[in-house]
């Protein structure tokens, strides 16, 4: 099954976020710190959330753009085949809730997610991001082969 946009077009376009972020915003690409910003408003006295959050405000605007992209695409028909949409059923809520928990906890403990480590970190050839990306895949393989067959 081929997607609307092949990887050899989409990948380089995604990678352009790195020079664009640096040139336009003087920011290193990342997304999961947006969740730390939200946490800092909910638990302002916690040691982890007491930090210079204004440096990460741009990530909150960035994720608003991501949500808008999702909203706009719902206005166009058949962006995905129905087989792809089957799993998005609220009866699978526990899968998404537990998945979300692991994403949030893991991203902050590792110091970044796929954006900050796989895309930005590997682009700067950082050892920390090599280690983390390998562990992302180890975790992903464990879940795909061992956990999901139990859940679904």
């Amino acid at each position, binding site marked *: 099954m081929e997607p609307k946009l092949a990887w050899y077009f989409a990948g380089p376009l995604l990678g352009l976020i*790195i020079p664009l972020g*640096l040139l*336009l915003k003087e920011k290193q690409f990342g997304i999961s710190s947006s969740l730390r910003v939200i946490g800092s408003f909910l638990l302002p006295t916690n040691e982890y959330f007491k930090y210079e959050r204004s440096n990460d405000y741009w990530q909150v*605007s960035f994720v608003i753009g991501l*949500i808008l992209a*999702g909203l706009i695409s719902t206005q166009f028909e058949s962006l995905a085949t129905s087989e792809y949409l089957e799993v998005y059923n609220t009866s699978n809520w526990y899968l998404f809730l537990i998945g979300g928990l692991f*994403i949030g*906890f*893991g991203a902050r403990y590792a110091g970044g997610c796929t954006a900050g480590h796989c895309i930005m970190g590997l682009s700067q050839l950082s050892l920390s991001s090599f280690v983390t990306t390998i562990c992302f895949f180890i975790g992903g393989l464990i879940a795909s082969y061992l956990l999901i067959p139990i859940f679904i």
Partner: protein
Amino acid sequence: MRVIISIVLGLLFGTVLILSEAVYWQRIQEMFHFKSFHMYGLLFSAIATGVISIQLIKRFKIKSVNGNLIVIKPKKLNWKGNIIGGMFFGIGWSLAGACTAPLFITVGLNWQIGLIIFTGALLGVIIYGLLYKKLN
């Protein structure tokens, strides 16, 4: 203006992720089951673009639009966090079939599922904050 630039960047990044189908749970499963090269192609070509961009910016000392020299901070190595946090994140990536960008895009695409993943992720970050001292 600065806020609008960030929102537009998010909008463009999100649109490419939707058109390339990287936002879908099935695509993530295909990747972890090595059934399709698509996601690997996406990741590798995005990283290659990033490596080249960073080398060009460094070599030619290209300045930002505000005229400042661009300083790229190294990612700090933290064995415990990188390994344990990385594995936790990987498990979540596979279960939810989304990483952080697709998580937010899903809020727009399918708000019920999106809000469930978002609530989980926010709770995960709060739990990390509460355990921060013990974990580090």
